[in-house]
């Protein structure tokens, strides 16, 4: 019945183990995110296959486009499960899509490792099929608040996109700032708009924040930096700028924002300066070699999901979903960013391995992300925050 | 049965109608003549409700219809054709014929009989299933005329119905018209074809610059010096 995938031929179902990949490859999602996921997962699979595969079989990646949209994601999951018959799935970088996808994973009882979507609800729902190797919003917002407290910021402005990630974080931050009595204001903006001047003016109208939190992804993230700089709002001596999205670590940042990104503070779960594990550097090198660009941490997440799945299947000794899930729960595996384990107590951190978050700062124009200094947390910091004159 | 009182209409600086008064009695055939741009079509548009008059009123069977919508006037029994043809271009000839009848909720049999008869009368039966836009201009004008007849109007207003007709066709048209008139229909006809209008009309109204220049017996109007000067040349 299922002879669609050419090349592997008819005996395919016995000879290979099918792994599903999912992520946005086309708009309205962020295709750059999906592309990195797909590339890094393929990289891991190729490496594993070169080493003899899993249970003596090759792994094969079936990557579906979710467009970052709930319905499309749902449909893509259905396809992976009912048509391609994959044994496990990993990926996704948009919370809205991921939340729809986990429902399908649960309904069909297929293990699903979310690689890069941060919404608390994904793991908080407590579905036993669902795992995550990315930070969640609760943790992310906690780190931001810790950062704010450590550096003594007192007046915060937040500009956030209208996605689940953006809105979710604003809610969490609001709550904590209120508790701690830190002054703040916030605005939610559409990801499609490109002129954020009105919102930036509104935020700073009769108000001079000392920290601007830029909770945006993609083009919006860059444009907020650029336009805040043009308006002379941030980063300045008075107002620091923090970028929450992965985009700060993309090499495009200098071409797109120019001098505006100098002094921007950003977060990343990975920096070569913080030596995580022995796997990190070879993976980064292999990725550069293969795809001719520097990986962002998204790629590391994607890469790890495959390692984790391979390891679990190997230990389970079968591709039965329940056994893979059981094996996943017992994971203790060195990934590219640390030793992965999945906590079992319910809550946002259920089945969620939380990687470290590093806060970095660019101090030179055209600085490579790898050369940026770590400014927080203090135990790994390589430098103090530089304040522009 | 139809009466207009002090009808005036202007477009920007153009005074298209100026205090026009006249009355149409049942079974009359009124001819309207006048130079180009004298306001004839505007008069028809105003009577049927396409334009709102600036001033004046329109009475139909002792009912003031000045401000009722277009389609209600049609349903009351005022039919019309247009100088610039307004057929349902992509509907077939046959479908064009049925539209008015459907609005009157005629029985299927009645409307089909009536449509066939009219098509036969003007020799368009062979084009029945052709889209209206594929007819020659003369054929389109004919179709518009018989389509208006499907509305069973008591009074029909025609705007240059014979323009572009072959003389034989004009004769057929006149015969049809007179026959319908005998059966009780009233007509108001705008026409530049003098012999034709002279043959059919019972009364002639000459309009110039939006005003009624003269009205009355066709012969008298035709030979009137003012009319000749303004219109016939």
């Amino acid at each position, binding site marked *: *019945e299922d002879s*669609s995938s050419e090349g592997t031929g008819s005996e395919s179902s016995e000879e290979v183990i099918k792994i599903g990949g999912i992520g946005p*490859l*086309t708009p*309205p999602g962020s*295709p750059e995110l*999906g*592309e990195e996921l797909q590339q890094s997962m393929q990289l891991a699979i190729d490496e594993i296959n070169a080493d003899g595969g899993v249970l003596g079989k090759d792994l094969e990646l079936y*990557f579906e*486009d979710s467009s970052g*949209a*709930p*319905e*499309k994601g*749902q*449909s893509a999951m*259905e*396809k992976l499960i*009912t*048509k391609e018959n994959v044994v496990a799935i990993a990926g996704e970088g948009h*919370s*809205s899509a991921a*939340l*729809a996808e986990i*429902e399908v994973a649960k*309904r*069909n009882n297929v293990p699903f490792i979310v690689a890069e979507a941060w*919404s608390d609800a994904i793991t908080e729902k407590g579905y036993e099929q669902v795992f995550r190797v990315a930070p969640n919003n609760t943790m992310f917002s906690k780190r931001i608040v810790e950062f704010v407290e450590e550096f003594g910021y007192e007046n915060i402005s937040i500009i956030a996109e*209208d*996605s*689940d990630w953006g809105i979710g974080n604003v809610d969490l931050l609001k709550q904590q700032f209120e508790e701690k009595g830190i002054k703040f204001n916030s605005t939610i903006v*559409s990801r499609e708009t490109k002129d954020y001047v009105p919102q930036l003016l509104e935020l700073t109208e009769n108000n001079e924040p000392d920290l601007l939190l830029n909770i945006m992804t993609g083009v919006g993230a860059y444009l907020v930096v650029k336009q805040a700089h043009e308006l002379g709002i941030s980063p300045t001596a008075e107002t620091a700028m923090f970028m929450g999205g992965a985009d700060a670590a993309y090499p495009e940042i200098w071409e797109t924002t120019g001098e505006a990104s100098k002094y921007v503070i950003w977060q990343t779960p990975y920096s070569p300066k913080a030596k995580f594990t022995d796997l990190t550097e070879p993976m980064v090198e292999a990725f550069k070699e293969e795809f001719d660009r520097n990986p962002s941490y998204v790629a590391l997440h994607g890469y790890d999901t495959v390692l984790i799945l391979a390891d679990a299947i190997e230990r389970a000794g079968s591709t039965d979903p329940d056994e893979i899930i059981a094996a996943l729960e017992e994971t203790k595996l060195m990934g590219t960013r640390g030793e992965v384990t999945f906590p079992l107590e319910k809550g946002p951190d259920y089945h969620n391995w939380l990687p470290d978050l590093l806060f970095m700062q660019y101090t030179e124009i055209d600085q490579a992300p790898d050369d940026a200094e770590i400014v927080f947390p203090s135990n790994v910091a390589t430098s103090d925050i530089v304040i522009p004159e | 049965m139809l009466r207009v009182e002090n009808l005036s209409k202007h477009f920007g600086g153009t005074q298209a109608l100026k205090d026009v008064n006249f009355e149409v009695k049942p079974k009359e055939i009124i001819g309207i003549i006048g130079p180009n741009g004298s306001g004839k079509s505007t008069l028809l548009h105003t009577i*049927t409700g*396409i334009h709102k008059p600036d001033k004046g009123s329109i009475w139909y069977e002792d009912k003031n219809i000045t401000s009722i*919508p*277009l*389609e209600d006037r*049609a*349903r009351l029994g005022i*039919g*019309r054709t*247009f100088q610039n043809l*307004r*057929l*349902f*271009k*992509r*509907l077939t000839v046959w*479908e*064009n014929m*049925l*539209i*008015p009848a*459907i*609005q*009157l909720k005629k029985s299927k049999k009645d409307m089909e009989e009536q449509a066939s008869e009219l098509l036969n009368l003007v020799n368009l039966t062979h084009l029945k299933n052709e889209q209206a836009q594929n007819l020659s201009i003369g054929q389109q004008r004919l179709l518009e005329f018989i*389509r*208006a007849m*499907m*509305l069973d109007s008591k009074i029909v207003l025609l705007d240059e119905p014979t323009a572009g007709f072959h003389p034989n066709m004009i004769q057929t048209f006149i015969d049809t018209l007179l026959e319908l008139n005998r059966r009780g229909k009233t007509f108001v006809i705008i026409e530049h074809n003098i012999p034709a209008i002279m043959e059919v009309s019972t009364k002639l109204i000459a309009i110039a610059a939006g005003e009624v220049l003269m009205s009355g017996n066709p012969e008298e109007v035709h030979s009137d010096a003012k009319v000749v000067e303004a219109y016939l040349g």
Partner: protein
Amino acid sequence: MEQLEKRILAVLLVVALFLPLFVDDYALHIVILACFFIMMASSWNLLAGYSGQVSFAHMALASSGAYTSGLISVHLGIHPVLSILVGAVVAGLVGLFLGVLTLRMKDSYLALTTIAFAEIFRLVISLEYKVTNGKVGLSVPGLFGDITSKLPYYYTAIGLVVLMVFFGIYRLVYSNFGLTVRSIREDEIAASAMGVKVVRHKIIVFTISSAMAGVAGGFLAHYNQLVSPEMTTITQMGMVISMAVIGGLGTFIGPIIGGLSLEIIAEYVKEFGNYHLMIFGLILILVLRFSPQGIAGLITKFHNRKKKKVSTSASTEKEVQK
């Protein structure tokens, strides 16, 4: 209705009846989605193809039905069968409102104004996330609980809905009402001069087709168990229009064929990864460019050609007899 249309419909019906016996779940899933699009395309065709009101708000109307149904089934615990009906009524009312609002507009104005309406709608449901759950989408109960193995149930149910909707459209289109509506499309002034109640007809069509969209939207919501603003994007609307036009606008069978074939094509080109939308766009362009009358037009042409061969020989015979 033409013989040819009848024959095609009969074939489709038979195929639909026996389909579940031969295909896997995923294929059934695609067919269910196709049914949704067919309903959308057909009801849009009623609006645009027959009455000439080219609206881009059809997906927004479906979405209004879907959200209504979803929200009341979640909050009031009403069974989806009922809530879908309520959704349809609400969509109909929104359609009525929109119809009145755009009554005096034509052609491109109407098209672009309805785009504006759809965009506002999408903006509101994205931003009022406290009620609608924003871009994440609203989780709603399934029509038959939440187990996928009930796919055949859904298949049967949507089959019935499709039949009902089609019956409605069929009755409207092949009636005096349908003919009158087409005359409005051709020339509103001429139509009113022939006694047609233009306003009433336009609004009725708008309302009915909106309610149909509402049913389709509601059904999809309770099948997917999810409603999200994604449904209302111009791209999605463009898909529906493409289906109607590629199938053949202003024909009964067109949107059915169009919906089915485009959904299948869309599914098939997914194999091409991130090339898939590009290829899809290309297919759209090529089909339109080389068969502007749509697939239905193509079929009639082939059919007629065959028939003509027969009839020309018949007419020459006649001539000979003379």
